[in-house]
């Protein structure tokens, strides 16, 4: 006779309960895939982004360029423990046909390692006369079709030390050894002159310096973590470049995703506990019988523990494969995703979820083993619960409602656990949708396709406007809008006005002191004579002769504050400014009735010690304080409030800006109400902004000065920018900027990247949401299916006393309705609290207008998902009941 051991009992039990275990296995696999898959996905995302960053930017933390040997030695001396690679810059090369070009240089071994060349075609240059060119450099030089092995004839402006190049080019013939992925272009977003200093045409170290020339150095610097690199003020560098930013974004993303996957793991853990709990509850009678025939607690844990172990071991490899292929499939849908799987993370996360499954099963298992044999057989627990819950007998009831209600009350822990899983799912899903739609609601202007700015925007007198100056007209804007494929063109203008505030305040002097020395001093060098001892005297009394003459001639008296008025698109006004007081009313701004004042509540003034260069005045808003500067010398509070009237005097002349008031000036005085006071949003790129100024709509600005020109135009395309579209757009932009000292930056590659990133995020988040809802659905289904199985005898009894299929289904659907309703309500309530609460914290901390984290609120998608989940579970319930109805009542009632 076969010996009955704990192992054989467990295996027999597994064989007999194949069907029940199949559902449990599906639930556990889903939960394991969810937790390990998320971790694996986060790890792949992180390694993919690191790889993309490495390919796009290299591995240097800072690149300092245009250095002399001495500058470089100083840099090394000032920063011990930092590693350097050096690029030897030989000149600037361009083609005859195109004026644009690229800097030429060679990299030492360390620089090459930090540069991380991505060879798309061909190879790295090895001999004299060979060159490897970045793709973007070839495109800009009109050599987009060049192939490795081609001979390139370039004009080379030979380097003559830092900042100096020969005026006449020499003709150089290179052989194109290789085509490289872009680095310079990615690194230098916002650094218009970077193509002069960062090498994009790489030659070998055998390339000699041209006769009469002298190298300039570019240092590729890698710093230890959190290192405060000391750079001489005169050294140009890209330390806050796109590379720096993406790295920070990457770190943020990884932390965010890790927290998310931790929460998801916890949620799946709850699901597993719940699934096992339901399973063991169903088998309580069996446990009681085993205990009654002498099984010890240890043996009970042994039997069911082995079953769990076998289950977990079945689930682990399946989860491993599903996680791997799931992430691989998602990766396939994502553009620019480099699938670099980390097997350690995958195995580790599956092992962790294996342990998690065992631990999760142990909780209900030990609880079940604690139950006394009679308690389990007779279910005396219910009687105790009834006494605790003070249940009263009813004499009038709807049978299905009463049964559902009782089940929910008696098994409320299970109900709560299931509802909790759904609540977590609802919270995360709502967050995911809001995050996703918030991200895609508007393109970051930084990633707009084309930016047309002014290369030189020097202002001398911040109290006059000169229509003779450079800028872009409404016609230019319209011409861009008419181009096919253009989604929007945003123009930003700025005029200067003199505001007469009702109250005298130190605030305005502080605000303008460091921004406009021309208001205080005739000679710029006077700013260098400021000291902590004499600054107050100058702050109070100094006024430049031009500014004085202007006031006298226009007979202006009182608190006169020259301030810029900036134009914004109406949607940007709402999005970008933090309202401190009042409210933004676009109609009133358009009609010129109101204006927005950008001015923080409090300003702080410092003198920054620049050593041999003296002191420089710095002003910051209170929450932008640098910890290293210590206490400010002055602090001033704004005395103007929303609702105050202000008179704006705008003076416009057709001449150019030399600080003097020309005879042809036109003066406009306009008294307006300050509708809202905002705190400046420092995230706006391409704009030199002070902390203070006015802001209105373009229409409103036109009422103050009709002759203004746009300082910059930002073009966003409707879709991907192809080579042909780029060529067309470039020709239109060339016409617009002809004769203007323009700075044109085409960031379409970035914009395309941004679009691709959004698509990636959408795919990833949708996959997670669907998976989350499936798991919640599977857990709810498991719990209810187990309830039905457990209540098989009850179903038989109810059928015997006359209940039909719809009576039974109604009862279980009510339970389902309560679970999903309660879980969703808790999830939505938690999310709304987070939504409003985070805004309130922002308000309490920074006194910003209370603003929700995401706008607008997108919860209907999740609600729809929950409805779908409810429908699926309800259908499953119906099927389960039908299955039992197919059996005879006697089969339902019969004991094990």
């Amino acid at each position, binding site marked *: 006779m076969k010996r009955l051991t704990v192992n054989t009992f467990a295996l027999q039990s597994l064989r007999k309960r194949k069907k029940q275990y199949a559902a449990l296995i599906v639930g556990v696999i889903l939960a394991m895939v969810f937790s390990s898959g998320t971790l694996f996905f986060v790890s792949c995302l992180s390694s993919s982004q690191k790889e993309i960053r490495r390919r796009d930017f290299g591995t240097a933390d800072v690149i300092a360029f245009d250095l002399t040997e001495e500058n470089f030695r100083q840099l090394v001396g000032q920063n011990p423990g930092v590693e350097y690679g050096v690029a030897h810059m030989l000149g600037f090369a361009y083609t005859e046909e195109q004026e644009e070009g690229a800097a030429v240089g060679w990299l030492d071994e360390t620089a090459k390692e930090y540069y991380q060349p991505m060879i798309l075609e061909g190879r790295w240059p090895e001999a004299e006369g060979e060159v490897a060119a970045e793709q973007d450099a070839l495109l800009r030089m009109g050599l987009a079709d060049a192939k490795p092995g081609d001979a390139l004839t370039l004009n080379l402006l030979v380097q003559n030390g830092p900042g100096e190049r020969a005026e006449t080019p020499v003709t150089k013939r290179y052989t194109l050894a290789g085509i490289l992925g872009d680095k310079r272009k990615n690194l230098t977003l916002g650094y218009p002159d970077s193509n002069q200093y960062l090498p994009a045409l790489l030659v070998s170290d055998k390339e000699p310096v041209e006769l009469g020339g002298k190298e300039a150095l570019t240092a590729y610097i890698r710093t230890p973590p959190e290192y405060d690199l000391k750079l001489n003020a005169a050294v140009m560098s890209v330390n806050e470049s796109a590379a720096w930013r993406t790295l920070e974004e990457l770190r943020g993303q990884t932390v965010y995703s890790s927290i998310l996957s931790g929460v998801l793991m916890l949620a799946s853990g709850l699901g597993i506990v719940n699934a096992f709990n339901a399973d063991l509850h169903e088998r309580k009678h069996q446990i009681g019988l085993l205990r009654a025939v002498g099984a010890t607690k240890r043996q009970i844990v042994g039997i069911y523990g082995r079953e769990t172990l076998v289950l977990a071991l079945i689930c682990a490899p399946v989860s491993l494969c599903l996680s791997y292929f799931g992430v691989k499939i998602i990766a396939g849908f994502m553009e620019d995703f480099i699938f670099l799987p980390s097997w350690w993370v995958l195995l580790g996360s599956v092992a962790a979820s294996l342990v998690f499954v065992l631990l999760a099963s142990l909780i209900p298992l030990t609880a079940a083993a604690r139950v006394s044999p009679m308690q389990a057989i007779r279910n005396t627990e219910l009687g105790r619960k009834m006494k605790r819950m003070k249940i009263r*007998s009813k004499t009038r009831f709807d049978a299905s409602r009463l049964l559902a209600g009782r089940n929910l009350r008696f098994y409320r822990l299970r109900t709560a656990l299931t509802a909790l899983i759904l609540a977590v799912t609802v919270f995360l899903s709502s967050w995911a949708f809001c995050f996703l739609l918030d991200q895609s609601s508007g393109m970051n202007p930084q990633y707009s396709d084309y930016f047309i700015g002014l290369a030189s925007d020097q202002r001398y007198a911040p109290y006059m406007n000169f229509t003779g100056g450079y800028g872009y007209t409404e016609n230019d804007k319209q011409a861009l809008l008419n181009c096919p494929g253009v989604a929007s063109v945003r123009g930003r203008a700025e005029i200067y006005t003199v505001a007469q505030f009702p109250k005298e305040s130190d605030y305005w002097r502080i605000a303008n002191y460091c921004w406009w020395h021309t208001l205080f001093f005739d000679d710029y060098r006077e700013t260098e004579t400021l000291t902590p001892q004499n600054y107050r005297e100058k702050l109070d009394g100094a006024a430049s002769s031009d500014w004085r003459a202007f006031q006298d001639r226009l007979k202006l008296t009182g608190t006169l504050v020259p301030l810029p008025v900036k134009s914004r698109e109406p949607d940007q006004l709402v999005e970008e400014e933090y309202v401190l007081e009042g409210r933004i009313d676009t109609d009133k701004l358009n009609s010129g009735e109101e204006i927005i004042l950008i001015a923080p509540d409090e300003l702080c003034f410092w003198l920054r010690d620049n050593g041999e260069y003296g002191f420089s005045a710095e002003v910051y808003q209170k929450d932008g304080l640098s910890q290293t500067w210590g206490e400010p010398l002055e602090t001033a509070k704004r005395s103007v409030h929303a609702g105050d009237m202000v008179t704006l005097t705008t003076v416009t002349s057709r001449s150019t800006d030399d600080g003097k008031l020309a005879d042809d000036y036109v003066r406009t005085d306009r008294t307006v109400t300050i509708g809202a006071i905002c705190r400046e949003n420092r995230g706006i790129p391409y704009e030199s902004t002070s902390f203070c100024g006015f802001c209105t709509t373009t229409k409103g600005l036109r009422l103050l000065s009709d002759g203004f020109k746009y300082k910059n135009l930002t073009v966003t395309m409707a879709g991907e920018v192809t080579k042909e579209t780029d060529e067309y757009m470039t020709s239109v932009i060339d016409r617009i900027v002809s004769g203007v000292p323009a700075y044109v930056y085409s960031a379409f590659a970035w914009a395309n990247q941004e679009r691709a990133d959004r698509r990636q995020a959408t795919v990833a988040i949708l996959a997670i949401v669907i998976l989350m809802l499936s798991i919640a659905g599977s857990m709810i289904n498991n719990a209810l299916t187990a309830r039905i199985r457990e209540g098989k005898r009850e179903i038989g009894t109810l059928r015997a006393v006359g209940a039909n299929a719809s009576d039974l289904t109604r009862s279980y659907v009510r339970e389902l309705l309560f679970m999903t309703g309660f879980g969703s309500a808790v999830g939505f309530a938690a999310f709304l609290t987070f939504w409003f609460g985070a805004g309130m914290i922002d308000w309490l901390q920074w006194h910003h207008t209370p603003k929700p984290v995401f706008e607008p609120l997108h919860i209907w998608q999740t609600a729809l998902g929950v409805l779908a989940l409810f429908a699926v579970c309800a259908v499953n319930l119906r099927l389960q009941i039908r299955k039992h109805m197919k059996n005879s009542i*006697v089969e339902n009632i019969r004991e094990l």
Partner: protein
Amino acid sequence: MTILECKELTKEYYSGENVIKAVDDANLSFAQGEFTAITGPSGSGKSTLLHVLSSLENPTSGEVTYNGESLKKYNDNQLSILRRRRFGFVFQAYNLVQELTGMENILLPVMLDKKKPDEAYLNKLVEVLGIGDRIGHLPSAMSGGQQQRIAIARALANKPAILFADEPTGNLDGKSGREVLALLKYVSAEFGITLILVTHDLSVAEQAQRVLTLSDGKIIRDTKGAAQ
């Protein structure tokens, strides 16, 4: 007057490749108000006969008629209504709904029928069955005898025409068993209910008006009981 009838009734079970005839060609009729005991050794098919007669199980062949109407014509919903209104069931294992109190269990068929309970009738039932002090408790807090009384009250709550009882005293001690049987007899006489009871206890069978004896699924004897 015949209330329940079966013709050529057969119920087969499959055990691997073997066919077991639990009920073999039974032809019976039951008169209104009659107390019939079905008896026989274990495995003779007495419980199966009761289940098939009461529509708890479908027969393999043959038919059951209630008030002259074949139950074959009834769909699932109609059978549920029949069970709820005209049939009452008492099981050996009581089969009370564990989450409902005694009173709620008793009221279950009435409430499933969405009827107003006949309070005077129910009070009388409770009084006759002697369960007034236990009806507010859950079944798990009751003794076997008390649970069976609740089960009898539930079976009678809708004033059924036929009461089917499957070994109703099988789980009870001698005294409780005798009490329950007396109650069954009393209520069926009091309310004019046909009582069909399965038992292997001859002393119980002796109290019936008619005794059917089964062996291997066949009715081998149909006699008038001692009570007759």
